[in-house]
Protein backbone atom coordinates (compact mmCIF):
# COMPACT_ATOMS: atom_id res chain seq x y z
CA UNK A 1 0.00 0.00 0.00
CA UNK A 2 1.47 3.30 -1.01
CA UNK A 3 1.68 6.14 1.40
CA UNK A 4 -0.46 8.67 -0.37
CA UNK A 5 0.31 12.39 -0.27
CA UNK A 6 -0.48 13.63 3.25
CA UNK A 7 -3.72 15.49 3.35
CA UNK A 8 -5.09 16.79 6.63
CA UNK A 9 -8.09 19.08 6.60
CA UNK A 10 -10.30 20.65 9.26
CA UNK A 11 -13.95 19.85 8.90
CA UNK A 12 -15.48 21.13 12.11
CA UNK A 13 -15.42 24.05 14.52
CA UNK A 14 -16.79 25.10 17.85
CA UNK A 15 -16.65 22.47 20.58
CA UNK A 16 -15.75 19.67 18.21
CA UNK A 17 -12.94 19.96 15.75
CA UNK A 18 -12.79 17.32 13.09
CA UNK A 19 -9.51 16.58 11.39
CA UNK A 20 -9.75 14.48 8.29
CA UNK A 21 -6.57 12.59 7.51
CA UNK A 22 -6.99 11.46 3.92
CA UNK A 23 -4.13 9.01 3.66
CA UNK A 24 -2.44 6.04 5.24
CA UNK A 25 -0.25 6.89 8.22
CA UNK A 26 3.04 5.14 7.74
CA UNK A 27 6.68 5.49 8.64
CA UNK A 28 7.24 7.06 5.25
CA UNK A 29 4.79 9.96 5.63
CA UNK A 30 4.22 10.31 9.34
CA UNK A 31 6.47 13.34 9.72
CA UNK A 32 4.42 15.36 7.26
CA UNK A 33 1.12 14.21 8.74
CA UNK A 34 2.43 15.05 12.23
CA UNK A 35 3.38 18.58 11.17
CA UNK A 36 0.05 19.22 9.48
CA UNK A 37 -1.92 17.92 12.46
CA UNK A 38 0.24 19.85 14.91
CA UNK A 39 -0.23 23.11 12.98
CA UNK A 40 -3.98 22.68 13.05
CA UNK A 41 -4.03 21.79 16.76
CA UNK A 42 -1.86 24.82 17.62
CA UNK A 43 -4.17 27.08 15.61
CA UNK A 44 -7.19 25.59 17.33
CA UNK A 45 -5.77 26.25 20.80
CA UNK A 46 -5.41 29.94 19.96
CA UNK A 47 -8.51 30.51 17.92
CA UNK A 48 -10.96 28.19 19.59
CA UNK A 49 -10.67 28.18 23.39
CA UNK A 50 -14.06 26.36 23.71
CA UNK A 51 -12.69 23.37 22.01
CA UNK A 52 -13.72 20.19 23.89
CA UNK A 53 -13.46 17.29 21.48
CA UNK A 54 -11.11 16.31 18.71
CA UNK A 55 -12.50 14.00 16.09
CA UNK A 56 -9.83 12.35 13.99
CA UNK A 57 -11.45 11.03 10.86
CA UNK A 58 -9.04 8.54 9.37
CA UNK A 59 -11.59 6.50 7.48
CA UNK A 60 -9.57 6.99 4.28
CA UNK A 61 -6.62 5.06 5.72
CA UNK A 62 -6.14 1.47 4.62
CA UNK A 63 -3.05 0.89 6.71
CA UNK A 64 -1.44 2.41 9.77
CA UNK A 65 1.90 0.99 10.78
CA UNK A 66 3.63 1.17 14.15
CA UNK A 67 5.06 4.60 13.49
CA UNK A 68 1.60 5.84 12.58
CA UNK A 69 0.19 4.23 15.72
CA UNK A 70 2.85 5.90 17.85
CA UNK A 71 1.89 9.21 16.33
CA UNK A 72 -1.79 8.64 17.16
CA UNK A 73 -0.86 7.72 20.74
CA UNK A 74 1.10 10.99 20.90
CA UNK A 75 -1.97 12.89 19.68
CA UNK A 76 -4.04 11.13 22.34
CA UNK A 77 -1.54 12.20 25.02
CA UNK A 78 -1.45 15.73 23.63
CA UNK A 79 -5.22 16.25 23.83
CA UNK A 80 -5.56 14.43 27.13
CA UNK A 81 -3.21 16.94 28.75
CA UNK A 82 -5.61 19.63 27.62
CA UNK A 83 -8.65 17.69 28.83
CA UNK A 84 -9.93 17.32 25.32
CA UNK A 85 -11.78 14.18 24.37
CA UNK A 86 -10.53 12.22 21.43
CA UNK A 87 -12.71 10.33 18.99
CA UNK A 88 -11.14 8.39 16.12
CA UNK A 89 -13.18 7.13 13.19
CA UNK A 90 -11.77 4.34 11.09
CA UNK A 91 -13.24 2.25 8.31
CA UNK A 92 -10.87 -0.69 8.54
CA UNK A 93 -11.45 -3.44 11.08
CA UNK A 94 -7.76 -4.26 10.80
CA UNK A 95 -6.79 -0.77 11.88
CA UNK A 96 -9.30 -0.95 14.75
CA UNK A 97 -7.64 -4.22 15.75
CA UNK A 98 -4.24 -2.47 15.75
CA UNK A 99 -5.67 0.19 18.08
CA UNK A 100 -6.80 -2.49 20.45
CA UNK A 101 -3.38 -4.21 20.38
CA UNK A 102 -1.63 -1.01 21.42
CA UNK A 103 -4.50 -0.06 23.78
CA UNK A 104 -5.30 3.13 21.92
CA UNK A 105 -8.95 2.18 22.28
CA UNK A 106 -8.54 2.92 25.99
CA UNK A 107 -7.25 6.41 25.30
CA UNK A 108 -9.84 7.38 22.72
CA UNK A 109 -13.32 6.55 21.57
CA UNK A 110 -12.73 4.45 18.49
CA UNK A 111 -15.60 4.30 16.03
CA UNK A 112 -15.59 1.77 13.23
CA UNK A 113 -17.72 3.17 10.44
Amino acid at each position, binding site marked *: *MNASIPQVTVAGSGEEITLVVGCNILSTNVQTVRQQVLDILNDAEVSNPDWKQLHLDITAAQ*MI*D*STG*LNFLVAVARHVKKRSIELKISVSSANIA*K*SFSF*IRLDRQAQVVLV
Partner: protein
Amino acid sequence: MFLTPDGRQVARVSRPVDHVLIIDDELALLEMLQTVVSTFGYEVTAASSVDEAEGLLTRQGTHTYQCVLTDYKMPGRNGLELLRWLRHFDGDLSIIVNTGYASHEDVSAMIREGAVDVLRKPVQMDLLGQAIAHGVRQTRLSRRRARAEQAVKQVGVVQGYMLRITGIRDLPWVGFYSRPMHQAGGDFVAYHKREGGGHLLILADVAGHNLDAAYISAFFHGAVHGMASGSMSALDMMGEVNTFLLEKWNDRDLGDTLDQAPEASVCAMFLEMDAERKHLSFHNNGLPPPVVTCVAGRSRVLGTGNSPLGLYEDPETYVEQVDDMSGCAILCFSDGLEDFAHARRVTPLALACRLHLAAESAREELLADADDDIMLMRVCMDGCGDEDSFLPVFMEAYAGDRCKDIDAIEDSWARSISFAVPELPDDKLYALLITAREAMLNALKHGCEGSPNMKATLHVAFCPALKTVRVIVEDPGQGYFDDFLTNPEPDMEKERHSGLVLIRNFPDKIWTERNNATVFAEFTWI
Protein backbone atom coordinates in the same frame (compact mmCIF):
# COMPACT_ATOMS: atom_id res chain seq x y z
CA MET B 1 -7.67 -22.28 -74.78
CA PHE B 2 -10.11 -20.50 -72.54
CA LEU B 3 -11.45 -17.02 -72.20
CA THR B 4 -10.45 -14.84 -69.27
CA PRO B 5 -12.96 -12.45 -67.68
CA ASP B 6 -11.26 -9.55 -69.47
CA GLY B 7 -11.70 -11.22 -72.88
CA ARG B 8 -8.18 -12.65 -73.41
CA GLN B 9 -7.68 -16.18 -74.71
CA VAL B 10 -5.34 -18.16 -72.52
CA ALA B 11 -3.90 -21.63 -72.99
CA ARG B 12 -5.04 -24.16 -70.45
CA VAL B 13 -2.44 -25.01 -67.84
CA SER B 14 -2.00 -28.54 -66.76
CA ARG B 15 -2.93 -28.04 -63.11
CA PRO B 16 -6.26 -29.51 -61.95
CA VAL B 17 -9.24 -27.54 -63.17
CA ASP B 18 -11.18 -25.77 -60.45
CA HIS B 19 -14.74 -26.95 -60.15
CA VAL B 20 -17.70 -24.60 -59.76
CA LEU B 21 -21.21 -25.64 -58.75
CA ILE B 22 -23.96 -23.36 -60.11
CA ILE B 23 -27.52 -23.45 -58.78
CA ASP B 24 -30.46 -21.62 -60.41
CA ASP B 25 -34.10 -22.59 -60.95
CA GLU B 26 -34.31 -20.66 -64.27
CA LEU B 27 -33.03 -23.30 -66.63
CA ALA B 28 -32.18 -20.93 -69.50
CA LEU B 29 -30.14 -18.73 -67.16
CA LEU B 30 -28.53 -21.81 -65.60
CA GLU B 31 -27.45 -23.04 -69.02
CA MET B 32 -26.10 -19.63 -69.95
CA LEU B 33 -24.11 -19.34 -66.69
CA GLN B 34 -22.74 -22.84 -67.20
CA THR B 35 -21.47 -21.89 -70.65
CA VAL B 36 -19.99 -18.58 -69.54
CA VAL B 37 -18.22 -19.97 -66.47
CA SER B 38 -16.84 -22.85 -68.55
CA THR B 39 -15.27 -20.33 -70.90
CA PHE B 40 -13.42 -18.91 -67.88
CA GLY B 41 -11.62 -22.23 -67.63
CA TYR B 42 -13.58 -23.89 -64.85
CA GLU B 43 -15.27 -27.23 -64.77
CA VAL B 44 -18.93 -26.57 -64.08
CA THR B 45 -21.73 -28.66 -62.61
CA ALA B 46 -25.26 -27.31 -62.67
CA ALA B 47 -28.18 -27.90 -60.30
CA SER B 48 -31.68 -26.44 -60.56
CA SER B 49 -32.58 -26.47 -56.86
CA VAL B 50 -31.05 -26.39 -53.39
CA ASP B 51 -32.08 -30.00 -52.82
CA GLU B 52 -30.31 -31.12 -55.99
CA ALA B 53 -27.19 -29.11 -55.02
CA GLU B 54 -27.15 -30.63 -51.53
CA GLY B 55 -27.46 -34.07 -53.08
CA LEU B 56 -24.45 -33.42 -55.34
CA LEU B 57 -22.35 -31.95 -52.54
CA THR B 58 -23.23 -34.85 -50.26
CA ARG B 59 -22.51 -37.54 -52.85
CA GLN B 60 -19.36 -36.03 -54.33
CA GLY B 61 -18.06 -34.30 -51.20
CA THR B 62 -17.68 -30.57 -50.79
CA HIS B 63 -13.96 -30.83 -51.54
CA THR B 64 -14.86 -31.64 -55.16
CA TYR B 65 -15.71 -27.97 -55.61
CA GLN B 66 -13.73 -24.78 -55.25
CA CYS B 67 -16.67 -22.39 -55.54
CA VAL B 68 -20.48 -22.39 -55.40
CA LEU B 69 -22.57 -19.83 -57.30
CA THR B 70 -26.20 -19.90 -56.22
CA ASP B 71 -29.38 -18.06 -57.03
CA TYR B 72 -31.09 -16.56 -53.98
CA LYS B 73 -34.82 -16.91 -54.61
CA MET B 74 -35.85 -20.36 -55.76
CA PRO B 75 -38.95 -22.50 -55.27
CA GLY B 76 -38.64 -24.54 -52.07
CA ARG B 77 -35.47 -23.58 -50.28
CA ASN B 78 -33.48 -20.43 -51.04
CA GLY B 79 -29.78 -19.61 -51.42
CA LEU B 80 -29.44 -18.52 -47.80
CA GLU B 81 -30.59 -21.93 -46.62
CA LEU B 82 -28.02 -23.58 -48.87
CA LEU B 83 -25.39 -21.25 -47.45
CA ARG B 84 -26.28 -22.23 -43.86
CA TRP B 85 -26.38 -25.93 -44.71
CA LEU B 86 -23.01 -25.76 -46.43
CA ARG B 87 -21.35 -23.76 -43.61
CA HIS B 88 -22.30 -26.55 -41.27
CA PHE B 89 -20.23 -29.05 -43.25
CA ASP B 90 -17.52 -27.00 -44.91
CA GLY B 91 -16.53 -23.54 -43.72
CA ASP B 92 -13.86 -23.21 -46.38
CA LEU B 93 -15.87 -23.57 -49.62
CA SER B 94 -16.66 -20.12 -51.07
CA ILE B 95 -20.26 -19.31 -51.91
CA ILE B 96 -21.33 -16.47 -54.18
CA VAL B 97 -25.01 -15.54 -54.17
CA ASN B 98 -26.51 -14.25 -57.40
CA THR B 99 -29.80 -12.46 -56.80
CA GLY B 100 -32.30 -10.18 -58.47
CA TYR B 101 -34.64 -9.74 -55.53
CA ALA B 102 -32.75 -9.66 -52.23
CA SER B 103 -33.39 -6.82 -49.80
CA HIS B 104 -30.63 -5.10 -47.82
CA GLU B 105 -31.51 -7.34 -44.86
CA ASP B 106 -31.19 -10.44 -47.05
CA VAL B 107 -27.80 -9.29 -48.35
CA SER B 108 -26.62 -8.56 -44.80
CA ALA B 109 -27.76 -12.01 -43.71
CA MET B 110 -25.85 -13.63 -46.59
CA ILE B 111 -22.66 -11.77 -45.73
CA ARG B 112 -23.08 -12.68 -42.05
CA GLU B 113 -23.50 -16.33 -42.97
CA GLY B 114 -20.25 -16.22 -44.89
CA ALA B 115 -21.03 -15.50 -48.56
CA VAL B 116 -17.83 -14.25 -50.19
CA ASP B 117 -19.76 -12.08 -52.65
CA VAL B 118 -23.34 -11.09 -53.49
CA LEU B 119 -23.99 -10.34 -57.17
CA ARG B 120 -27.05 -8.59 -58.55
CA LYS B 121 -28.86 -9.99 -61.61
CA PRO B 122 -28.35 -9.46 -64.45
CA VAL B 123 -24.70 -9.92 -63.64
CA GLN B 124 -22.00 -8.53 -65.88
CA MET B 125 -19.64 -11.13 -67.29
CA ASP B 126 -16.45 -9.49 -66.05
CA LEU B 127 -17.87 -9.09 -62.53
CA LEU B 128 -18.96 -12.71 -62.51
CA GLY B 129 -15.47 -13.81 -63.61
CA GLN B 130 -13.77 -11.73 -60.96
CA ALA B 131 -16.13 -12.97 -58.23
CA ILE B 132 -15.57 -16.62 -59.11
CA ALA B 133 -11.80 -16.17 -59.37
CA HIS B 134 -11.84 -14.53 -55.92
CA GLY B 135 -14.06 -17.27 -54.51
CA VAL B 136 -11.79 -20.01 -55.84
CA ARG B 137 -8.72 -18.26 -54.40
CA GLN B 138 -10.44 -17.92 -51.02
CA THR B 139 -11.36 -21.59 -50.98
CA ARG B 140 -7.80 -22.64 -51.81
CA LEU B 141 -6.40 -20.30 -49.17
CA SER B 142 -8.83 -21.44 -46.47
CA ARG B 143 -8.20 -25.10 -47.22
CA ARG B 144 -4.44 -24.59 -47.19
CA ARG B 145 -4.68 -22.77 -43.86
CA ALA B 146 -6.87 -25.52 -42.41
CA ARG B 147 -4.34 -28.16 -43.51
CA ALA B 148 -1.49 -26.16 -41.95
CA GLU B 149 -3.44 -25.76 -38.71
CA GLN B 150 -4.14 -29.46 -38.64
CA ALA B 151 -0.45 -30.21 -39.21
CA VAL B 152 0.55 -27.86 -36.41
CA LYS B 153 -2.04 -29.38 -34.12
CA GLN B 154 -0.64 -32.78 -34.94
CA VAL B 155 2.84 -31.66 -33.83
CA GLY B 156 1.27 -30.67 -30.52
CA VAL B 157 -0.41 -34.06 -30.25
CA VAL B 158 2.89 -35.79 -30.92
CA GLN B 159 4.70 -33.64 -28.35
CA GLY B 160 1.95 -34.40 -25.82
CA TYR B 161 2.35 -38.09 -26.56
CA MET B 162 6.13 -37.86 -26.17
CA LEU B 163 5.59 -36.22 -22.83
CA ARG B 164 3.29 -39.04 -21.80
CA ILE B 165 5.75 -41.76 -22.75
CA THR B 166 8.56 -40.09 -20.81
CA GLY B 167 6.60 -41.18 -17.74
CA ILE B 168 6.91 -37.80 -16.07
CA ARG B 169 3.18 -37.63 -15.36
CA ASP B 170 3.27 -41.00 -13.66
CA LEU B 171 5.71 -39.86 -11.00
CA PRO B 172 3.73 -38.95 -7.88
CA TRP B 173 6.58 -36.84 -6.60
CA VAL B 174 6.72 -34.61 -9.66
CA GLY B 175 4.21 -31.93 -10.56
CA PHE B 176 4.67 -30.81 -14.13
CA TYR B 177 2.92 -28.23 -16.25
CA SER B 178 3.84 -27.09 -19.72
CA ARG B 179 2.08 -24.69 -22.02
CA PRO B 180 3.67 -24.03 -25.38
CA MET B 181 2.96 -20.65 -26.94
CA HIS B 182 1.80 -22.45 -30.06
CA GLN B 183 0.50 -26.01 -30.24
CA ALA B 184 3.99 -27.27 -29.51
CA GLY B 185 7.12 -25.55 -28.29
CA GLY B 186 10.73 -25.82 -27.25
CA ASP B 187 10.13 -26.47 -23.54
CA PHE B 188 10.24 -30.12 -22.67
CA VAL B 189 11.03 -32.48 -19.82
CA ALA B 190 12.17 -36.08 -19.78
CA TYR B 191 12.59 -38.68 -17.10
CA HIS B 192 15.10 -41.51 -17.07
CA LYS B 193 15.34 -44.29 -14.53
CA ARG B 194 19.03 -44.74 -13.82
CA GLU B 195 20.94 -47.83 -12.93
CA GLY B 196 20.54 -48.64 -9.23
CA GLY B 197 17.10 -47.07 -9.11
CA GLY B 198 18.24 -43.46 -9.35
CA HIS B 199 16.24 -40.80 -11.11
CA LEU B 200 17.25 -38.32 -13.78
CA LEU B 201 14.99 -35.44 -14.72
CA ILE B 202 15.99 -33.27 -17.65
CA LEU B 203 14.37 -29.97 -18.44
CA ALA B 204 15.19 -28.18 -21.64
CA ASP B 205 14.19 -24.94 -23.23
CA VAL B 206 15.27 -24.54 -26.83
CA ALA B 207 15.80 -21.00 -28.11
CA GLY B 208 12.74 -19.69 -29.90
CA HIS B 209 9.18 -20.71 -29.36
CA ASN B 210 8.02 -21.76 -32.79
CA LEU B 211 7.57 -25.25 -34.11
CA ASP B 212 11.22 -25.47 -35.12
CA ALA B 213 12.03 -25.20 -31.41
CA ALA B 214 9.78 -28.21 -30.76
CA TYR B 215 11.65 -30.15 -33.42
CA ILE B 216 15.09 -29.27 -32.04
CA SER B 217 13.83 -30.04 -28.54
CA ALA B 218 12.72 -33.51 -29.66
CA PHE B 219 16.12 -34.05 -31.26
CA PHE B 220 17.86 -32.99 -28.05
CA HIS B 221 15.79 -35.29 -25.86
CA GLY B 222 16.24 -38.19 -28.24
CA ALA B 223 20.01 -37.71 -28.16
CA VAL B 224 20.09 -37.37 -24.40
CA HIS B 225 17.88 -40.42 -24.02
CA GLY B 226 20.47 -42.46 -25.86
CA MET B 227 23.29 -41.06 -23.76
CA ALA B 228 21.39 -41.55 -20.50
CA SER B 229 20.71 -45.18 -21.42
CA GLY B 230 24.46 -45.60 -21.73
CA SER B 231 24.93 -44.45 -18.13
CA MET B 232 26.75 -41.31 -19.17
CA SER B 233 27.13 -38.68 -16.46
CA ALA B 234 25.05 -35.52 -16.59
CA LEU B 235 28.11 -33.36 -17.11
CA ASP B 236 29.30 -35.50 -20.01
CA MET B 237 25.86 -35.44 -21.61
CA MET B 238 25.78 -31.67 -21.42
CA GLY B 239 29.26 -31.55 -22.89
CA GLU B 240 28.23 -33.80 -25.79
CA VAL B 241 25.21 -31.68 -26.58
CA ASN B 242 27.31 -28.51 -26.39
CA THR B 243 29.90 -29.97 -28.75
CA PHE B 244 27.28 -31.19 -31.20
CA LEU B 245 25.59 -27.81 -31.32
CA LEU B 246 28.87 -25.95 -31.72
CA GLU B 247 30.56 -28.26 -34.18
CA LYS B 248 27.58 -29.33 -36.26
CA TRP B 249 24.50 -27.23 -35.98
CA ASN B 250 26.00 -23.80 -35.42
CA ASP B 251 29.20 -24.37 -37.40
CA ARG B 252 28.55 -21.89 -40.22
CA ASP B 253 29.18 -18.31 -41.16
CA LEU B 254 26.82 -15.65 -40.00
CA GLY B 255 25.79 -14.92 -43.58
CA ASP B 256 25.12 -18.55 -44.41
CA THR B 257 21.36 -18.71 -44.72
CA LEU B 258 21.34 -21.51 -47.23
CA ASP B 259 18.96 -23.67 -45.29
CA GLN B 260 17.26 -20.90 -43.29
CA ALA B 261 17.64 -22.94 -40.10
CA PRO B 262 18.19 -20.73 -37.06
CA GLU B 263 21.22 -21.05 -34.82
CA ALA B 264 20.31 -23.37 -31.97
CA SER B 265 20.99 -23.12 -28.27
CA VAL B 266 19.52 -25.25 -25.53
CA CYS B 267 18.97 -24.28 -21.92
CA ALA B 268 19.11 -27.51 -19.99
CA MET B 269 18.86 -28.59 -16.40
CA PHE B 270 19.72 -32.05 -15.11
CA LEU B 271 18.39 -33.14 -11.73
CA GLU B 272 19.92 -36.45 -10.79
CA MET B 273 18.75 -38.15 -7.61
CA ASP B 274 19.45 -41.36 -5.81
CA ALA B 275 16.70 -43.97 -5.47
CA GLU B 276 15.47 -42.46 -2.15
CA ARG B 277 15.60 -38.91 -3.52
CA LYS B 278 17.76 -37.67 -0.68
CA HIS B 279 20.86 -36.75 -2.61
CA LEU B 280 20.72 -34.29 -5.48
CA SER B 281 23.27 -33.77 -8.19
CA PHE B 282 22.28 -30.60 -9.98
CA HIS B 283 23.52 -29.27 -13.33
CA ASN B 284 22.27 -26.17 -15.07
CA ASN B 285 23.03 -24.35 -18.28
CA GLY B 286 20.78 -21.44 -19.01
CA LEU B 287 17.52 -22.18 -17.25
CA PRO B 288 16.45 -19.84 -14.43
CA PRO B 289 17.93 -21.17 -11.17
CA PRO B 290 15.33 -23.29 -9.39
CA VAL B 291 14.16 -22.56 -5.87
CA VAL B 292 14.50 -25.10 -3.09
CA THR B 293 12.01 -24.83 -0.25
CA CYS B 294 12.59 -26.69 2.99
CA VAL B 295 10.07 -27.98 5.49
CA ALA B 296 10.09 -24.73 7.44
CA GLY B 297 9.08 -22.76 4.34
CA ARG B 298 12.46 -21.12 3.96
CA SER B 299 13.65 -21.01 0.36
CA ARG B 300 16.93 -20.63 -1.41
CA VAL B 301 17.95 -20.23 -5.02
CA LEU B 302 19.91 -23.18 -6.33
CA GLY B 303 23.00 -21.82 -8.05
CA THR B 304 23.03 -19.68 -11.12
CA GLY B 305 21.71 -20.13 -14.63
CA ASN B 306 24.91 -19.64 -16.63
CA SER B 307 24.78 -19.63 -20.41
CA PRO B 308 22.84 -22.07 -22.61
CA LEU B 309 24.49 -24.98 -24.38
CA GLY B 310 25.64 -24.42 -27.94
CA LEU B 311 27.21 -20.99 -27.57
CA TYR B 312 30.69 -21.47 -26.09
CA GLU B 313 33.29 -24.18 -26.07
CA ASP B 314 33.32 -24.17 -22.29
CA PRO B 315 29.67 -24.18 -21.31
CA GLU B 316 30.58 -23.45 -17.65
CA THR B 317 27.84 -25.71 -16.39
CA TYR B 318 26.70 -24.86 -12.87
CA VAL B 319 27.12 -27.94 -10.73
CA GLU B 320 26.02 -28.48 -7.14
CA GLN B 321 25.79 -31.58 -5.03
CA VAL B 322 23.38 -31.51 -2.10
CA ASP B 323 23.71 -34.43 0.28
CA ASP B 324 20.49 -34.21 2.23
CA MET B 325 17.43 -32.83 0.54
CA SER B 326 14.96 -34.60 2.83
CA GLY B 327 11.72 -32.71 3.18
CA CYS B 328 12.62 -30.23 0.46
CA ALA B 329 10.87 -29.44 -2.79
CA ILE B 330 12.52 -28.02 -5.90
CA LEU B 331 10.62 -25.61 -8.08
CA CYS B 332 11.94 -25.29 -11.63
CA PHE B 333 10.61 -23.04 -14.36
CA SER B 334 11.49 -21.68 -17.76
CA ASP B 335 12.31 -18.08 -18.61
CA GLY B 336 8.89 -17.77 -20.24
CA LEU B 337 7.34 -18.04 -16.78
CA GLU B 338 9.79 -15.49 -15.40
CA ASP B 339 9.02 -13.01 -18.17
CA PHE B 340 5.29 -13.45 -17.86
CA ALA B 341 5.46 -12.96 -14.08
CA HIS B 342 7.39 -9.74 -14.52
CA ALA B 343 4.84 -8.52 -17.05
CA ARG B 344 2.14 -9.18 -14.44
CA ARG B 345 4.29 -7.39 -11.82
CA VAL B 346 4.40 -10.44 -9.57
CA THR B 347 7.32 -12.66 -8.65
CA PRO B 348 7.96 -15.84 -10.66
CA LEU B 349 7.43 -17.75 -7.42
CA ALA B 350 3.97 -16.24 -7.01
CA LEU B 351 3.02 -17.17 -10.57
CA ALA B 352 4.50 -20.65 -10.14
CA CYS B 353 2.54 -21.16 -6.91
CA ARG B 354 -0.72 -20.03 -8.51
CA LEU B 355 -0.17 -22.21 -11.58
CA HIS B 356 0.81 -25.24 -9.54
CA LEU B 357 -2.41 -25.08 -7.55
CA ALA B 358 -4.80 -23.99 -10.30
CA ALA B 359 -7.13 -26.23 -12.27
CA GLU B 360 -6.22 -26.77 -15.93
CA SER B 361 -8.87 -24.37 -17.24
CA ALA B 362 -7.78 -21.66 -14.80
CA ARG B 363 -4.18 -22.10 -15.93
CA GLU B 364 -5.16 -21.54 -19.53
CA GLU B 365 -7.03 -18.39 -18.54
CA LEU B 366 -4.10 -17.11 -16.48
CA LEU B 367 -1.67 -17.59 -19.32
CA ALA B 368 -3.89 -16.43 -22.16
CA ASP B 369 -1.62 -13.43 -22.88
CA ALA B 370 1.68 -15.27 -22.47
CA ASP B 371 3.96 -14.81 -25.47
CA ASP B 372 6.47 -17.56 -24.77
CA ASP B 373 6.48 -21.23 -23.88
CA ILE B 374 5.88 -21.75 -20.17
CA MET B 375 7.11 -24.72 -18.19
CA LEU B 376 6.87 -25.46 -14.49
CA MET B 377 8.03 -28.47 -12.52
CA ARG B 378 7.96 -29.19 -8.80
CA VAL B 379 10.00 -32.09 -7.53
CA CYS B 380 9.30 -33.40 -4.03
CA MET B 381 12.37 -34.94 -2.48
CA ASP B 382 12.31 -37.66 0.17
CA GLY B 383 9.74 -36.98 2.89
CA CYS B 384 8.14 -34.03 1.14
CA GLY B 385 4.49 -34.55 0.39
CA ASP B 386 1.63 -32.31 -0.54
CA GLU B 387 0.01 -32.76 2.88
CA ASP B 388 1.93 -30.19 4.81
CA SER B 389 4.59 -28.89 2.49
CA PHE B 390 4.96 -25.21 1.76
CA LEU B 391 5.07 -23.68 -1.69
CA PRO B 392 7.31 -20.65 -2.04
CA VAL B 393 5.45 -17.46 -2.87
CA PHE B 394 8.01 -14.75 -2.26
CA MET B 395 11.66 -14.54 -1.41
CA GLU B 396 13.68 -11.38 -1.50
CA ALA B 397 16.67 -9.92 0.30
CA TYR B 398 16.80 -6.20 1.06
CA ALA B 399 19.84 -4.09 1.90
CA GLY B 400 19.84 -2.43 5.30
CA ASP B 401 19.43 1.07 3.84
CA ARG B 402 16.09 0.26 2.15
CA CYS B 403 13.81 1.46 4.99
CA LYS B 404 12.86 4.47 2.92
CA ASP B 405 11.50 2.16 0.19
CA ILE B 406 9.31 0.15 2.52
CA ASP B 407 6.03 1.29 0.91
CA ALA B 408 7.08 0.14 -2.56
CA ILE B 409 8.53 -3.04 -1.09
CA GLU B 410 5.28 -3.76 0.73
CA ASP B 411 3.35 -3.11 -2.50
CA SER B 412 5.34 -5.82 -4.21
CA TRP B 413 4.55 -8.24 -1.36
CA ALA B 414 0.86 -7.42 -1.54
CA ARG B 415 0.69 -7.91 -5.31
CA SER B 416 2.54 -11.20 -5.35
CA ILE B 417 0.96 -12.74 -2.27
CA SER B 418 -2.61 -11.87 -3.21
CA PHE B 419 -1.93 -13.15 -6.74
CA ALA B 420 -0.43 -16.43 -5.55
CA VAL B 421 -3.03 -17.07 -2.85
CA PRO B 422 -6.23 -15.46 -4.10
CA GLU B 423 -8.27 -17.12 -1.37
CA LEU B 424 -6.27 -15.38 1.37
CA PRO B 425 -8.89 -13.35 3.29
CA ASP B 426 -8.42 -9.57 3.37
CA ASP B 427 -7.92 -9.42 7.12
CA LYS B 428 -5.22 -12.08 6.92
CA LEU B 429 -3.49 -10.22 4.11
CA TYR B 430 -3.52 -7.09 6.21
CA ALA B 431 -2.20 -8.95 9.23
CA LEU B 432 0.52 -10.50 7.11
CA LEU B 433 1.58 -7.23 5.52
CA ILE B 434 1.70 -5.25 8.75
CA THR B 435 3.63 -8.04 10.49
CA ALA B 436 6.10 -8.39 7.63
CA ARG B 437 6.50 -4.63 7.38
CA GLU B 438 7.24 -4.19 11.08
CA ALA B 439 9.54 -7.18 11.21
CA MET B 440 11.39 -6.08 8.07
CA LEU B 441 11.82 -2.52 9.33
CA ASN B 442 13.26 -3.92 12.58
CA ALA B 443 15.54 -6.21 10.61
CA LEU B 444 16.80 -3.41 8.36
CA LYS B 445 17.26 -0.84 11.11
CA HIS B 446 18.62 -3.02 13.88
CA GLY B 447 19.70 -6.38 12.44
CA CYS B 448 21.39 -4.79 9.42
CA GLU B 449 22.20 -1.56 11.29
CA GLY B 450 20.93 0.37 8.27
CA SER B 451 23.99 -0.71 6.32
CA PRO B 452 23.78 -1.18 2.53
CA ASN B 453 26.23 -4.05 2.93
CA MET B 454 23.96 -6.18 5.10
CA LYS B 455 20.73 -7.76 3.97
CA ALA B 456 17.52 -8.92 5.60
CA THR B 457 15.42 -11.56 3.88
CA LEU B 458 11.71 -12.13 3.60
CA HIS B 459 10.38 -15.59 2.82
CA VAL B 460 6.68 -16.16 2.24
CA ALA B 461 5.37 -19.67 1.68
CA PHE B 462 1.92 -21.17 1.40
CA CYS B 463 0.63 -24.55 2.54
CA PRO B 464 -2.68 -25.16 0.74
CA ALA B 465 -3.57 -28.21 2.85
CA LEU B 466 -3.25 -26.23 6.07
CA LYS B 467 -4.60 -22.99 4.56
CA THR B 468 -1.63 -21.27 6.08
CA VAL B 469 0.76 -18.65 4.86
CA ARG B 470 4.08 -18.57 6.67
CA VAL B 471 6.27 -15.50 6.78
CA ILE B 472 9.93 -15.59 7.77
CA VAL B 473 11.95 -12.44 8.29
CA GLU B 474 15.61 -12.87 9.09
CA ASP B 475 18.58 -10.61 9.41
CA PRO B 476 22.29 -11.26 9.94
CA GLY B 477 22.34 -9.53 13.34
CA GLN B 478 22.75 -11.02 16.80
CA GLY B 479 19.12 -10.49 17.78
CA TYR B 480 18.09 -9.25 21.21
CA PHE B 481 17.10 -10.80 24.50
CA ASP B 482 13.38 -10.40 25.03
CA ASP B 483 10.71 -13.10 25.09
CA PHE B 484 7.91 -10.64 24.46
CA LEU B 485 7.08 -12.04 21.03
CA THR B 486 6.76 -15.65 22.13
CA ASN B 487 6.01 -15.73 25.85
CA PRO B 488 2.28 -16.12 26.51
CA GLU B 489 2.67 -13.99 29.64
CA PRO B 490 5.45 -11.52 28.93
CA ASP B 491 6.63 -8.77 31.24
CA MET B 492 4.12 -6.07 30.32
CA GLU B 493 5.73 -3.41 32.49
CA LYS B 494 8.63 -3.16 30.12
CA GLU B 495 8.13 -0.46 27.49
CA ARG B 496 8.28 -1.71 23.94
CA HIS B 497 7.95 -0.33 20.48
CA SER B 498 4.42 -0.69 19.16
CA GLY B 499 5.86 -2.50 16.10
CA LEU B 500 6.63 -5.44 18.38
CA VAL B 501 3.08 -5.28 19.73
CA LEU B 502 1.74 -5.62 16.20
CA ILE B 503 4.16 -8.45 15.38
CA ARG B 504 3.12 -10.30 18.52
CA ASN B 505 -0.61 -9.86 18.06
CA PHE B 506 -1.47 -10.00 14.37
CA PRO B 507 -0.21 -13.49 13.42
CA ASP B 508 -2.09 -16.63 14.41
CA LYS B 509 1.19 -18.18 15.45
CA ILE B 510 4.62 -16.71 16.04
CA TRP B 511 8.01 -18.05 17.02
CA THR B 512 11.58 -16.89 16.71
CA GLU B 513 15.11 -18.24 16.37
CA ARG B 514 18.55 -16.75 17.05
CA ASN B 515 17.38 -14.34 19.77
CA ASN B 516 14.58 -12.98 17.60
CA ALA B 517 16.89 -12.34 14.63
CA THR B 518 14.65 -14.74 12.70
CA VAL B 519 10.92 -14.29 13.12
CA PHE B 520 8.39 -16.86 11.93
CA ALA B 521 4.75 -15.84 11.69
CA GLU B 522 1.80 -17.86 10.45
CA PHE B 523 -1.56 -16.75 9.17
CA THR B 524 -4.26 -19.39 8.97
CA TRP B 525 -7.87 -19.31 7.84
CA ILE B 526 -10.74 -21.72 7.58
